[in-house]
């Protein structure tokens, strides 16, 4: 049938189909098999010529990855290395040129502190409490911010009702909320979590709203004429469609959450990495300041990394769309 013959034309150009370049347009079954191999990435279960082709592609893929990322990795090393070198030299020669390195702890002293604090669980407890506060505040912010953002993005009435409050409260930095939070909430613990929540809430909400507003209207219309009601539209179209924006919001929100948490802990905490760092300053224990700061940096990095990992795990389609656009 002509239709089938004509249809086959497209089989020559499926992106990410390494087998087709070698075999040209073959039967649909063959093309499917080749695709299956690539999609599942398990060459052992398939037969004949396909596995070797896949293996070749995989090893050359690894080579490619190395080649295209080796330079990046070198630059990363230079970047971090020069920061450490600056710190090392500054403290070694006790530079004083407006900036003063006189009291700054050396890398060695901070490293010594790491060994010291790992003797007991005291420092780990600080970390645990900070992470717990972040998680609670952040999860509450996400579970309010995302649905509210979807509603505000979709309905004008919701927008007119919510946005004025948001616009008034948003410019107030989290640290300015500390006295008010202490008055508002029964315990210090709750007020610190509240401040963490506030910090991450606005970026999450606003990015979600922006995502809904910029969602391609044709997708909504397509869903509606495929029989999607309003609830289905939210769950099956808007939520996944806005997911990339939501994750941008979560990423930014996580960063702001750490900023807010540390500020709150420094002022009103009894535990936490922020408290640890501030206490070190009060007790003139300078190496602990360095340790606290580096810990905060690493924890923040770890949290952002976790969000990115979760994001790429639940948005597998983005890998493909980005690969083509680069």
């Amino acid at each position, binding site marked *: 049938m002509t239709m089938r013959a004509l249809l086959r034309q497209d089989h020559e150009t*499926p992106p990410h189909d390494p087998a087709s370049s070698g075999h040209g347009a073959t039967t649909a079954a063959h093309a499917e098999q080749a695709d299956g191999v690539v999609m599942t990435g398990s060459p052992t279960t398939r037969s004949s010529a396909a596995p070797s082709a896949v293996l070749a592609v995989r090893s050359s893929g690894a080579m490619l990855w190395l080649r295209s990322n080796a330079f990046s990795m070198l630059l990363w090393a230079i970047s971090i290395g020069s920061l450490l070198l600056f710190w090392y030299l500054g403290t070694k020669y006790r530079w004083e040129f407006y900036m003063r390195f006189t009291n700054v702890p050396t890398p060695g002293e901070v490293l010594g502190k790491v060994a010291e604090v790992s003797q007991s669980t005291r420092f780990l407890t600080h970390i645990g409490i900070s992470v717990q506060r972040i998680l609670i505040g952040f999860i509450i912010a996400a579970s309010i911010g995302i649905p509210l953002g979807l509603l505000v993005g979709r309905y004008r009435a919701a927008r007119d009702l919510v946005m004025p409050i948001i616009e008034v409260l948003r410019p107030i930095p989290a640290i300015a909320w500390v006295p008010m939070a202490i008055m508002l909430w029964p315990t210090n613990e709750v007020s610190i979590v509240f401040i963490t929540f506030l910090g991450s809430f606005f970026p999450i909400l606003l990015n979600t709203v922006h995502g809904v507003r910029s969602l391609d209207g044709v997708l909504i219309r397509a869903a509606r*004429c495929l029989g999607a009601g309003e609830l289905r539209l939210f769950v099956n179209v808007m939520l996944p469609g806005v997911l990339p924006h939501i994750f941008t919001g979560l990423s930014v929100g996580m960063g702001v959450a750490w900023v807010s948490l540390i500020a709150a802990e420094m002022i009103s905490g009894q535990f936490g990495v922020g408290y640890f760092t501030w206490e070190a300053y009060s007790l003139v224990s300078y190496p602990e300041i360095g340790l606290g700061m580096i810990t905060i940096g690493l924890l923040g990095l770890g949290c952002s990394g976790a969000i990115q990992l979760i994001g790429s795990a639940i948005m*597998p389609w983005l890998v493909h769309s980005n690969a083509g656009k680069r």
Partner: protein
Amino acid sequence: MSDERKGWIQIDDLAVTFHANGTEVRAVDGVSMNVQPGEFVSLIGPSGCGKSTLLNIVAGFVQASAGSAELDGKPIKGPGSDRGVVFQQYSLFPWLSVRKNVEFGLRMQGVPRSRRESAARTLLGLAGLLAFENHYPDQLSGGMKQRVGIVRALATSPQVLLMDEPFGALDSQTRVVMQEILTNMWQQFRISVLFITHDIEEAIFLSDRIYVMTARPGRIKAEIAVPLPRPRTPEMTASPAFVELVQQLKALIREESLAAMGSELKDGGLTGFGVKVGPHGVEEMV
């Protein structure tokens, strides 16, 4: 068979007025037209004459200001899965695999997973896309995306397929292939199709009947039956009957396009090269 009588679109004396930034735009005015069950009808006309508006009325996205639009004798109130729509822009859900895209309508109807999957596979097989069922839309070519779009619209077994310049973004070779695929599928499904295009040859090749619209506000300027036999083959495009239809339609469209440009350029018209394009077409300058 009784449901072969389904898919009858009847539009009577329809007018649509848009209100934008305080001004009123009458997009279509006094349009009466119909699509009979199982018929393939095309709509052509100059840009901005209200073709999409008309299609959106039938799809249920736009409300009429006057007149009526009915499907199988019932007024059209809003979108629904009895009318499949294929859009000019690719409208696949990027987060769903090709097969999940095709399943979407059935999922909304609560069809169980195994039935959805096999229905989607059958349709994808028809469109020659079974090998790509697990790909994401961004991994497909334009022609493949649009085939998925057509198959997705057909999955809920609509009585009507509405297509707004579905091949407009494709290159001419892919377009020809898609036209043939579409006629084949249409012949298998025997559903009514309302098809918008800028391409005269495409309209003739595909349609049983063609409505030509006037410049805005859009009215029906002419209704032309295509006497070519079915099944249509690419060779027919060289036949005298085909060529004659092309000429006839070109003349009609040219008049309207010039009128559209002329009225947009107000009384001054577009001048240059010793001619003037005005409301009455190209005139020699005196």
